[in-house]
């Protein structure tokens, strides 16, 4: 039992409430918000340090029983390697996106309610990563989504209300479906605690559980997570919502919120439901565990996402559209190694597949945030993100262009950037599965290759159009000669205003540069990232370790004994 587990949650919650309280003062609110975000990153780093480090060794599992109610009855928060890894990603991206938003969102918007909403979204994300209870997973999803609804709606223009309406309606239906699936799981397994579900599924006869209904309900639940992750065929809300939201919010949605869906898939299907062994044969899909059933499902969805997103991105004529469709495609790349891992013939390949997925999710979090933020700055300065309106930005804004270039190269996968290893691991997982004779892995390789080529195609197109090519009138008007910050617009005569604008743009570009440096840094120091991701993957696949830590961990047994009357 460790109180460190709830530290990130408490820090984010306190920050959210404080920013609400100090709303009257702009400066104070921004300071509190920023300090809170730094504290959140520190808290996640400390938790990571306690759980995963020293790298290479077995990762620890920290459990916090809320109010000391022992595991299957009380609410449990669990931090294992996987949670800690995802939390650090969330800490990194949320801090950088917040710094960017302070320079990007208008003063009025920030005064309105931006900061509390932003931090409540982080609270929801943190809770989803830490919870050990499926009903609480639903609650944290709602906390996260409620804030994201309003943040997507933030600009409240014509386009935005329409996009937000789609987003809200879709997610509300998703929530109802999730509730139905969770209610069904409670009814069939008799518990809501994830570890307890895993324990009971391992011995269905002892607890009188019919496994086939559980499989069906977990499939219903899967569709909800696929919706949150934006996988085909649930991808249709992604482009409109990403276009509507302010750039830093889009960075959070693509970089972190989407990963919550991926995390939930890994946690529930690889840690919890994998415990069950079931004899089934359905439409030619067969297997001796739930994963044998979900593997092909994931494979089909990942393939469809990679191809649909890739071709969609090639055909888009606006920068945000390309990035949004690219995001659909990249989620396919995150799920593809999971599909390989689900049907992997050996433990080693399963670990490799999940590791590849986690590394890819991490890269995507960094690189896609970078690209959305760079695109936001371009729109802010030039006033358009249509490819036809843009051109020649590489001359006029070399630093921003370099940032965008590195981000694109990361997603394409060029060494030594961190993205290279992500792609490499995906291919390696598929190739090793092929060598071990797993069915469909040749197809997985082919899809990954096609996806990689599509990625190159659409980023090359975006790069050529936006940063090279002839300078358009719009760019000419916005950036007269070189990247001279704050001199755009003839009406800008007030010196103080110009100074502020220069500062804001410098901050935005700095954030982009920091993310680009991070992409290079994680690539050069990839050994550490890989060890951490591998520890996370091992933790995700170690059902017994998870169950033991939650149900019989240090402190739990003693309390269960002392408080035996409750049971």
């Amino acid at each position: 039992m460790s109180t460190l587990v709830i530290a990130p949650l408490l820090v984010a919650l306190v920050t959210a409430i404080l920013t609400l309280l100090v709303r009257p003062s702009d400066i104070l609110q921004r300071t509190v918000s920023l300090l809170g975000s730094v504290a959140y990153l520190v808290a996640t780093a400390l938790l990571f340090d306690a759980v995963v480090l020293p790298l290479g060794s077995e990762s620890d599992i920290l459990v916090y029983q809320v109010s000391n109610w022992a595991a299957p009855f009380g609410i449990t928060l669990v931090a294992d390697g996987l949670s800690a890894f995802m939390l650090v990603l969330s800490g990194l991206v949320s801090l950088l996106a917040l710094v960017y938003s302070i320079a990007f969102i208008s003063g009025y918007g920030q005064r309105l309610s931006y900061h509390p909403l932003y931090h409540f979204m982080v609270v929801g994300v943190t809770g989803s990563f830490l919870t050990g209870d499926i009903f609480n997973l639903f609650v944290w999803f709602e906390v996260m989504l409620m804030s994201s609804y309003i943040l997507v709606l933030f600009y409240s223009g014509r386009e935005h209300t329409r996009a937000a309406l789609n987003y809200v309606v879709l997610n509300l239906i998703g929530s109802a479906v999730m509730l139905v699936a969770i209610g069904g799981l409670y009814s069939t397994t008799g518990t809501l605690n994830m570890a307890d579900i895993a324990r009971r599924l391992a011995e269905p006869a002892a607890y009188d559980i019919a496994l086939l209904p559980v499989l069906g309900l977990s499939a219903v639940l899967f569709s909800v997570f696929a919706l949150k992750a934006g996988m085909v065929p649930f991808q249709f809300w992604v482009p409109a919502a990403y276009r509507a939201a302010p750039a830093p919010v889009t960075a959070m949605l693509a970089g972190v919120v989407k990963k919550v869906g991926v995390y939930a898939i890994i946690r529930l299907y690889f840690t919890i439901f994998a415990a069950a062994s079931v004899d089934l044969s359905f439409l030619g899909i067969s297997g001796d565990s739930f994963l044998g059933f979900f593997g092909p499902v994931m494979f089909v969805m990942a393939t469809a996402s990679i191809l649909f997103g890739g071709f969609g991105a090639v055909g888009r004529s606006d920068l945000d559209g390309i990035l949004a469709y690219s995001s659909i495609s990249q989620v396919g790349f995150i799920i593809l190694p999971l599909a390989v891992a689900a049907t992997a013939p050996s433990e080693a390949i399963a670990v490799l597949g999940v590791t590849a997925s986690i590394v890819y999710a991490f890269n995507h979090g960094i690189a896609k945030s970078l690209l959305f933020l760079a695109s936001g700055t371009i729109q802010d300065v030039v006033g358009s993100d249509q490819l036809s309106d843009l051109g020649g930005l590489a001359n006029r804004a070399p630093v921003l262009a370099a940032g965008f270039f590195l981000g694109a190269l990361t997603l394409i996968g060029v060494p030594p950037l961190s993205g290279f290893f992500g792609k490499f691991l995906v291919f390696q997982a598929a190739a090793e599965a092929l060598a071990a004779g797993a069915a469909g892995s040749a197809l997985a390789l082919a899809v990954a290759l096609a996806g990689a080529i599509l990625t190159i195609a659409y980023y090359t197109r975006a790069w050529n159009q936006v940063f090279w090519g002839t300078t358009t009138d719009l760019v000419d008007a916005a950036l007269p000669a070189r990247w001279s910050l704050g001199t755009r617009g003839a009406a800008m005569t007030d010196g103080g205003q110009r100074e502020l604008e220069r500062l804001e743009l410098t901050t935005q570009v700095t954030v982009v540069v920091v993310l680009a440096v991070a992409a290079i840094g994680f690539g050069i120091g990839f050994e550490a990232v890989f060890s951490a991701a591998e520890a996370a993957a091992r933790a995700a696949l170690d059902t017994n370790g998870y169950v033991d830590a939650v149900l019989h961990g240090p402190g739990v047994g003693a309390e269960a004994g002392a408080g035996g009357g409750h049971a």
Partner: protein
Amino acid sequence: MTEVFLAGVLGVLFSIGTYLVLRRDVVRVVWGISIISQSANVYLVTMGGFDGLGPILSGHGGGGAAPTDPLVQALVLTAIVIGFGTTALALVLTYRVYEEHGTIDMYELGGSQ
């Protein structure tokens, strides 16, 4: 018997909800969503089972009847609170859509592109 009856009610509620969600009128879509989320709540209660008859404390002091599972009631309570919040938000959003577009007809609003 109660379960069978509630299963029928659930079927009706879900179909009404689905019918309303597929309407052109945004307000009906919001109604549809709240009906669907309420039917999810009824579903939760049904899933808890109706084996027990007594209230939760009736077993104390040697009282006879077995209690009904209280956990689902707690879950439903939480889900209702969340449902209230989201329904309120959806209604405000509908009003906002009306202000921005002058209509709440989905067809006139156009697709997501």
